[in-house]
């Protein structure tokens, strides 16, 4: 199990860096709070429409805060070619990829939990917290999809001279199916709409498997020089 061991040590390294002040998590949280305020003005959210708007707003925030966070962590790896020390170490490209996916997944999930909490407080929508157990599968699988594609793409774009600015242009179109699955299933659960949430969650799982397989094969081409 050397393979997973390496991945776990990458994860641990990222958590340590985060604690020692890379602050991508706090930036993500700050952005999602800001976006909530903007959405409040833009969509005029009140008790009548909050339930139907919730899923859309939340996933837009997840996507954009996620882009910010993932772009930042991969830029940090690119800076001073820090990732090269990993390339030349016995850690394989695959376990490096899995480690980065796990750390991105962790930070995204933390950001999402806080965003849900902010949302419940700011818009007086406690229902979303009480429904959390049912929302969790979609939330987790959607975020996993984000992280699987985002880790690969943020490494791609960080090599470009446009840097992380380029990330959304490449990442968003590819990740559309995941966003679609996340938004729709969450909307169905929140508004007690008929049928389909289970099917979407299964679909998300299938997408995740597909993205995982493709990215795992292709990641070594981004790392190798």
């Amino acid at each position, binding site marked *: 199990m050397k393979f997973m061991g390496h991945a776990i040590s990458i994860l641990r390294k990222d958590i340590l860096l985060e604690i020692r002040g890379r602050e991508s998590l706090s930036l993500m949280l700050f952005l999602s709070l800001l976006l909530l305020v903007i959405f409040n003005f833009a969509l005029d959210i009140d008790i009548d429409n909050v339930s139907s708007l919730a899923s859309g707003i939340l996933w837009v925030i997840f996507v954009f805060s996620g882009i910010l966070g993932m772009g930042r962590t991969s830029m940090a790896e690119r800076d001073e070619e820090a990732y090269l020390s990993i390339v030349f170490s016995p850690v394989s490209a695959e376990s490096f990829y899995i480690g980065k996916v796990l750390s991105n997944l962790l930070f995204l999930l933390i950001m999402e939990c806080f965003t849900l909490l902010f949302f419940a407080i700011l818009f007086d929508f406690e229902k979303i917290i009480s429904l959390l157990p049912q929302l969790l599968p979609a939330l987790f699988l959607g975020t996993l999809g984000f992280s699987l594609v985002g880790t*690969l793409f943020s490494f*791609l*774009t960080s*090599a*470009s*001279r*446009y840097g992380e600015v*380029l990330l959304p*242009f*490449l990442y*968003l*179109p*590819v990740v*559309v*199916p995941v966003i*679609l*699955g996340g938004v*729709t299933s969450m909307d169905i659960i929140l508004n007690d709409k008929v049928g*389909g949430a289970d*099917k*979407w969650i299964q*679909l998300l799982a299938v*997408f995740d498997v*597909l993205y995982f397989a*493709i*990215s795992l094969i*292709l990641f070594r*081409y*981004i790392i190798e*020089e």
Partner: protein
Amino acid sequence: MKTNRVITILFFLLLVLIPLDFFLIFKVAPTEKVMGDVQRIFYLHVSIASGALLAFTGVFLSSILFLWTKKIAWDIAACTSAEIGVLLSTLVLITGSIWARPVWNVWWTWDPRLLTTLILWFIYVGYFLLRSGIADKFRKAQYSAVIGIIGFIDIPIVRYATKWWKSIHPLLTQNGGGLNPVMKKVMLFSITTFVVITIFLFFFRFRLARIEERLQILKKKMED
């Protein structure tokens, strides 16, 4: 030059195919009863779409071949096909929109097929954004091959997801579907014509890309 000969042959083939295609579409194909003459846009639209699909398949295959062989010629082939794919899919979106207006009474509808085409278009425009931002030739080839592969595999995924999404909402648009035998034959011919056009455009652009490459190498030599 071998490429030159291919281009010449294809050019003369097209000189025959294109007028014949026009003749078939406007004279031989019967007028559709409900939509009238506007339905003739359909022959053009579907044909360009198959051309675009061919081009994107070309990107996918060349990208795989590049990662396998590491020969820069495959990268040039991939980039060339991507450019033609973007051109053709832009035309697909425009002609589709022009067709939708008289037939469905809207310029745009969030139909799964339209949505997939649009997302496809975004992916390959992104492909060129990435290319323009990386200076190192080999790295550029390597990274864009990754996008070329993921983008292509993503197409059926997007298609499936959007189809599922729409199946929850009522479907507004449905294709008539009922093409009569003559129409089907005209369609087939038109698709063939555009496949040849796509291949022609590919070789035409490919020749240019190769010569650009040669110029750059020569320039470097001059500087040394």
